[in-house]
């Protein structure tokens, strides 16, 4: 049994055995070097895998220190934290800070803006990578395709500071567009400081930066469509548009649903860096989102415990949204982001 060839995943290549027995045997078998696992005590397994554990250790330590220790640090949300007293000495105030959140007009405004921006982006940003992918997928010359692809991917790698600056230079009060407008006798407008058009502004920035990058995943899904399907549909008399409707779009369905769900799980996180850069120009009224609220209340205004409570609520709601959205995906019969096997 042990001399039998194994696949990388350690599953049996034998087709005779029932899957149950295969699973049991897989558990019994040790690592791929053939040492059966069950005969080894934990101590022996630790000894066998000590190199691997040593390899994982640096990353694990970094993550535990910089991601998990702060998670515990969220206890300040239940305190009246003072930097001079520290976490140990600051007085405990129970749920006071959480109660404050839900009555705080500025926080509720931040929640409103967050949801507004998310919804707006979902409607106007989300379809664009799909349309781009369809357009590019219909280009037959590989040279032109790859050239265009590498150009539209590019802005994804620019920093938000750069993107906002570029927009400011082009659409700002003294920018390129205004110059052309005034030269041709039109009234200038300052897109960068106008609260009324802020939603359009942040969405178009997001599109300029990431629409090309978002296309990758759809292009990949399109490349897996079996050409025989198209061939067969042509035989049945389907034209170009019918083929898109009946073959291409259904092929994209799982990816579209997956990304929609991911977006839903991320609903409370909208472009933190992007918004914090423009909050000054447009005003907190329309540009304050939960993340920027936490920053300004905590780090800037020094109301540490209140801000920590707001951040914690946001994190927990986001976590619930991810889990819920994934559940929803299962209901729709899609694989979702992850599944318990």
């Amino acid at each position, binding site marked *: 049994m042990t001399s039998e060839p194994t696949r990388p*995943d350690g599953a049996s290549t034998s087709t005779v055995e029932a899957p149950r027995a295969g699973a049991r045997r897989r558990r019994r078998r040790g690592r791929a070097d053939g040492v059966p696992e069950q005969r080894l005590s934990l101590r022996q397994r630790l000894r066998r895998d000590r190199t691997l554990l040593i390899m994982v250790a640096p990353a694990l330590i970094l993550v535990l220190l*910089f991601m998990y220790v702060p998670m515990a640090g969220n206890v300040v949300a239940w305190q009246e934290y003072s930097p001079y007293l520290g976490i140990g000495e600051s007085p405990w105030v129970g749920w006071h800070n959480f109660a404050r959140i839900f009555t705080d007009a500025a926080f509720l405004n931040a929640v409103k803006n967050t949801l507004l921006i998310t919804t707006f982006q979902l409607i106007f940003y989300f379809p664009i990578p799909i349309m781009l992918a369809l357009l590019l997928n219909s280009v037959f010359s590989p040279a032109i395709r790859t050239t265009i692809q590498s150009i539209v991917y590019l802005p994804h790698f620019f920093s938000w500071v750069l993107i906002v*600056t570029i927009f400011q230079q082009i659409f700002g009060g003294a920018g390129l567009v205004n110059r052309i407008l005034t030269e041709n006798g039109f009234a200038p407008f300052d897109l960068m400081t106008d609260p009324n058009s802020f939603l359009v502004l942040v969405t178009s920035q997001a599109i300029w930066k990431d629409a090309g990058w978002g296309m990758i995943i759809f292009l990949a899904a399109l490349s897996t469509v079996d050409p025989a399907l198209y061939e067969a549909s042509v035989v049945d008399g389907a034209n170009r548009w019918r083929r898109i409707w009946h073959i291409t779009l259904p092929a994209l369905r799982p990816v579209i649903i997956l990304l929609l769900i991911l977006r839903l799980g991320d609903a409370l996180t909208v472009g933190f860096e992007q918004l914090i850069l423009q909050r000054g120009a447009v005003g907190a009224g329309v540009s304050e989102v939960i*993340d920027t609220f936490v920053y300004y209340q905590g780090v800037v205004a020094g109301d540490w415990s209140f801000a920590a409570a707001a*951040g914690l609520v946001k994190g927990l709601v986001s976590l619930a949204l991810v889990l819920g959205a994934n559940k929803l995906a299962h209901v729709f019969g899609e694989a979702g982001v992850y599944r318990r*096997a």
Partner: protein
Amino acid sequence: MSTGTGNTQGALAPVVIDPGPDAEGSFQKPRRAGRRFARRSRHRPAWEESPTPLGFGLKALALLGIVLVVLYPLYTVILTSLSTQDSVTRAGGLVTVPDEFTWSAYEQIFSGGVVSRALGVSVFVTVVGTLLSLAVSTLAAYGLSRPNSVAHRPILFVFLFTMFFGAGIIPTYLLISNLGLINSLWALILPGAVSAFNLLILRNFFMGIDQAIIDAARMDGAGDWRILTSIVLPMSKAVLAVIALFYGVGYWNAFFNAMLYINDNALWPLQLVLRSYVLQGTQLPGSTTPIDVTGGAVTGLPIKMAIMVLAIVPILIVYPFIQRHFTKGVIFGAIKG
């Protein structure tokens, strides 16, 4: 897909989109994987009708428009950074038609002072950070990629969980300040040194490497260190390049960490300089004095645009070498894991 993911069973198993009939082959021969995308569309299939002139024209126009929307802003920014103050004044803002060229804006920002220092800081943080992140993630990804090793599932979960729940700004800030890292460049490197997402891409790639090769090496007496350095890493150059780019771009572009943790503007990275002097229009200290060859003081727009170009250039340099690996890297990462 049927291969390679066996030991994620029971843990969080990522969604799998079948990458097509020849993905199996590409999984074992990573170097050939990219061709799948090119090969598919080399010829128009016999059944595909050729486009009408109108459709062809519209499509060409749309694609040209998209390309221009991306490239035109970059063109004007670069052109303005190379222009004299005179041509900027004449143009009334960004220069869109080539006029006189001068390097004086660049000479000035490289002549010491805030921008030169910031460039040094950014380069240091990016290089050291990328090396550290890459080393630590590669080791961890390999350590977690061996089938049935002890405790790999709980450890993997520890990493995965950080993708779904973050601690929040306030407690992280309190930790950094309690560690005494305020005004230290390590505050820009350590907190984000490990990205669970990149780690998963690497791990997935390592698990896709044919187990037979690794078994053979083990038979020849190679330990895990030897297998990693002599077999796994040389086979993973493409994905390592992409991950290095992801990490590098992350460090290069980050400004919020610096905004939080660095108060001393001698330690500001380039993005923070960009933010305060270019975006918010704060006066650049010591920039008003030098007189350039054309006789006018070079302040204002050319300098600002030169700082912007400085922030773009490293990306433009690295990008062409790595971008052909994107599709594969992102597909293995984003879809499979």
